């Protein structure tokens, strides 16, 4: 029988020997400092990327690494259109890295002045979001579509084959039996009128029996993708010059309800944004900073900076997103999808009931009156609306000319007499009465009546947010003066009632009078002028179709 020490010796030899044998590959790679089986380029950083900048130890300055080319461009993978700095290997011409362009406002809070030399930006990189980074994968995606694809089976069969650009242009322009090669019995004998043939018939009606359909050229439908400003301008010019009104782009099928709701409240604007860095309290409806909206990374940066300085914010969303909306600076308010309008109107009800709206601001009926009081804008809150049932003007503003007043709209002045809105210095906010034999109501009064149609409990039932929470949100929203704002986006508007959801949320901003105030909602101010500059597209008339 084996003794104790022999047993230990045997175990030692077997254990150490087996262990070393099992780890032989590890040791073999360790000695030469290999990285994944290859000799590492750098003893510490392994086979990581070679930097695009080289530090001159004598001067302490950076200079460009001649092995790479840096190109600045714009990321069109989303609507934010952030600036990119693309690192391209000079030898292969391949992109090796995508960074943010530090000169572009989306990519740095303290974006750099254009006159700063590029070599000084080596240690001031711009940021780019995850999607921006994946541009590399998009460019080199083996399945990326880089040539025209033509269907060669029945519709819906998902069978495509690449064709040349010349073939595409030939078939689209000249038409004919262009689907003859598809083998699709439904379309292979179809005689298609190409663009040339269509254009030659531009003076013919599409259907003489239905002249409202317009000319034959309306048969061309141009559906663009996410194109904006300049590209949209060219698409529009081409379509209109050709003679079709059927020219669309991404927004027509996406967040158009957001734009229309915004336009209804802030005429001429289709988007407003909160002044995040100046705000004390923000409500994000159907969009979470850091997860959605645009410019996504800019919003995320600003919110991060602001919450470190005391910003509180609430995200109203059925889904808890990953933007860090929990903790003592932020709150997630879950809501039933598509019921944001109910929550907004409930808050409006509470605000009106508790007189937490900005009555002085809302009482200014014109720009002069508002400006004299130090306001930056005015509203139609005191304008009178005809509510006389069956009256031809029911639901419309009461026209000043109807009362023989000089102006366009009518308000009730401080003397409780009708006055032209354009001339009055102030006006009664909540008015119901009879003017010239017509029942009228101020706009603010109509909002009040609408909000008071349901109780908080009923609103709570609809949206799934408790009465207490509604009251707390409304109280918080009205506790920071004008340094509060509501921002909303697709989660709110992409419903059949999206327009009304948006309208109700905008009303919250209006009630506290935060338009264009620091920390409030901003209706634009500056930005990149896409339609002027190298090509002055504004000066070029857009032909009518």
């Amino acid at each position: 029988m084996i003794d104790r020490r022999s047993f230990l010796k045997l175990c030692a030899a077997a254990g150490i020997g087996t262990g070393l044998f099992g780890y032989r590959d590890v040791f073999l790679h360790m000695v030469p400092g290999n990285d994944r089986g290859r000799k590492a380029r750098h003893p510490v950083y392994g086979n990581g990327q070679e930097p695009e900048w080289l530090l001159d130890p004598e001067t302490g300055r950076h200079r460009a690494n001649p092995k790479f080319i840096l190109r600045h461009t714009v990321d069109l993978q989303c609507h934010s259109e952030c600036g990119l700095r693309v690192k391209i290997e000079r030898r292969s011409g391949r992109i090796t890295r995508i960074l943010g362009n530090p000169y572009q406002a989306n990519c740095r809070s303290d974006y750099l002045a254009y006159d700063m030399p590029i070599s000084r930006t080596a240690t001031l990189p711009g940021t780019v979001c995850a999607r921006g980074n994946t541009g590399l994968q998009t460019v080199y995606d083996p399945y990326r579509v880089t040539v025209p694809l033509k269907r060669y089976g029945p519709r819906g069969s998902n069978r495509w084959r690449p064709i040349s650009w010349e073939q595409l242009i030939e078939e689209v322009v000249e038409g004919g039996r262009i689907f003859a090669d598809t083998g699709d019995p439904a379309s292979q004998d179809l005689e298609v009128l190409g663009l040339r043939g269509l254009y030659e018939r531009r003076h013919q009606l599409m259907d003489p029996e239905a002249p409202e359909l317009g000319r034959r050229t309306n048969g061309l439908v141009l559906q663009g993708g996410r194109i904006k400003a300049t590209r949209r301008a060219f698409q529009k010019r081409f379509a209109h010059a050709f003679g079709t009104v059927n020219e669309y782009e991404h927004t027509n099928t996406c967040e158009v309800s957001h734009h229309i709701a915004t336009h209804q409240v802030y005429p001429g604007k289709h988007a407003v944004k909160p002044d995040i860095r100046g705000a004390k309290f923000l409500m994000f409806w159907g969009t979470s900073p850091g997860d959605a909206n645009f410019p996504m990374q800019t919003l995320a940066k600003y919110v991060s900076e602001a919450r470190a300085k005391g910003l509180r914010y609430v995200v109203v969303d059925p889904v808890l997103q990953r933007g860090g909306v929990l903790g003592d600076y932020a709150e997630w308010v879950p809501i039933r999808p598509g019921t944001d309008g109910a929550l907004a109107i409930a808050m409006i009800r509470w605000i009106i009931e508790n007189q937490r709206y900005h009555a002085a601001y809302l009482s200014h009926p014109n720009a002069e009156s508002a400006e004299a009081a130090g306001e930056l804008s005015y509203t139609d809150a005191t304008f009178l609306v005809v509510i006389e049932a069956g009256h031809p003007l029911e639901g419309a503003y009461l026209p000043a000319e109807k009362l023989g007043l000089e102006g366009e709209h009518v308000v009730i002045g401080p003397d409780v007499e009708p006055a032209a809105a354009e001339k009055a210095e102030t006006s009664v906010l909540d008015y119901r009465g009879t003017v010239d034999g017509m029942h009228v109501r101020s706009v603010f009064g109509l909002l009040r009546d609408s909000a008071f149609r349901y109780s908080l409990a009923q609103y709570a039932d609809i949206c799934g947010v408790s009465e207490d929470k509604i009251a707390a949100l409304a109280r918080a929203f009205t506790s920071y003066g004008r340094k509060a704002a509501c921002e909303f986006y697709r989660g709110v508007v992409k419903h059949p009632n999206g327009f009304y959801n948006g309208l109700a949320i905008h009303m919250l901003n209006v009630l506290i009078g935060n338009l264009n105030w620091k920390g409030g909602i901003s209706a634009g101010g500056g930005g990149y002028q896409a339609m002027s500059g190298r090509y002055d597209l504004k000066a070029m008339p857009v032909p009518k179709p």
Partner: protein
Amino acid sequence: MTDPFLVSRLPKFPEPLYELLNVAHNRPFSLLFANYSWFLGLAGGVALVWVLTARGRGRRDPVHQLTMPLAVVTIIAGFLNVLAEVRQPGRLYTGYLYGWNEWDTAVIKYGIILLPLFLVTCWWLTFQCLDRAALEKGIAGLPKGLRPLADLVTFWSRRYDLFAQPLTYRLVLGAVTVLGLFAPLYSGVFLMYEHGVPVWNSPAQALLFIATAVTKGAAVFLLLAPLLYRLATGTRLRMTAYEPLRWLAVAGLVVSAVTWFGWMWWLGRLGTTTDQQFTALLAGPYHALALWHWEIIGLVLPLIVLATLLFRYRIATWLAAFGILWGSYAIRLLVVLGGQALNRSGAGYLDFTLEPQVIAYTGFSTIFLLGLLAALLLLPFHQLEEEG
């Protein structure tokens, strides 16, 4: 079964959603990091036990003597696992040449100095705890040419007694305490430095790793001391004298439980979105690992056994000690893999797939550990008169 301590405001992850189609992220760590953390934790734990038992019967104490060989082999096993984990193992030694400057803000630059120092210290103390006369005899019995080498390897331990002077003795105890705390702390702090994994960015896991290290340091002796002593000396060890170790384990278990449940309470109620998702993960697909392997087997049952009269039953003590070792591995697995499971894109979670290579390295490192331990048990240990 619902875990009353894991309260998440998020719904549980649906079971079929193991892997969602999303941008794939490489995971920085596999099972091997959990191994590394567990072995280093055990080394730190037994080193702390060494310090605590030093005041008793000193260097002749069986537990005291067996501690340092155990620390040595577990540190080496930890190193083996991390070597297999990193894709560029050469980085570890090039770190000594360039790390201090190149890894300027990384905790690793402290680890690459203090952990090898811990190993060298434990190796040195292994020989200092031996019977000097027997060591002298053993080295003298070697061929003449090998004696200088043996002296070098043993740091000339046959020629001096580190514990003879109170000052040096206290210095050694202090140094081992610092290094013993650092070893389990390090793997927790290392995770905290990993960017992009919010769950790891918490000091709770560092505290948890220390507490579980102390617990398993005590548990490993409750479980293995008689066997190791028998193998080392051929004599039997009566465990009655080592009952105080159970109170050390109990203290560690209590601190672990408070830290764990406090952490989960905080995450579930006040944590960020990612923290919430982590708790949802623990309440969903990782539920068994969290509840059974860690909370029940690793915490509650050992606590019941060691804090009550059940301790008198040898089998119960062994099971409790085994549960502690098992549970301390489960908690590391939970934290390491759970942190990585959360998809940065927010869609579902990434499932963990055990790779054969990882299993192989786990097995080889364990076999190596056992072999090295067997070799160290051949050293001349003191034998207490009352044993045998």
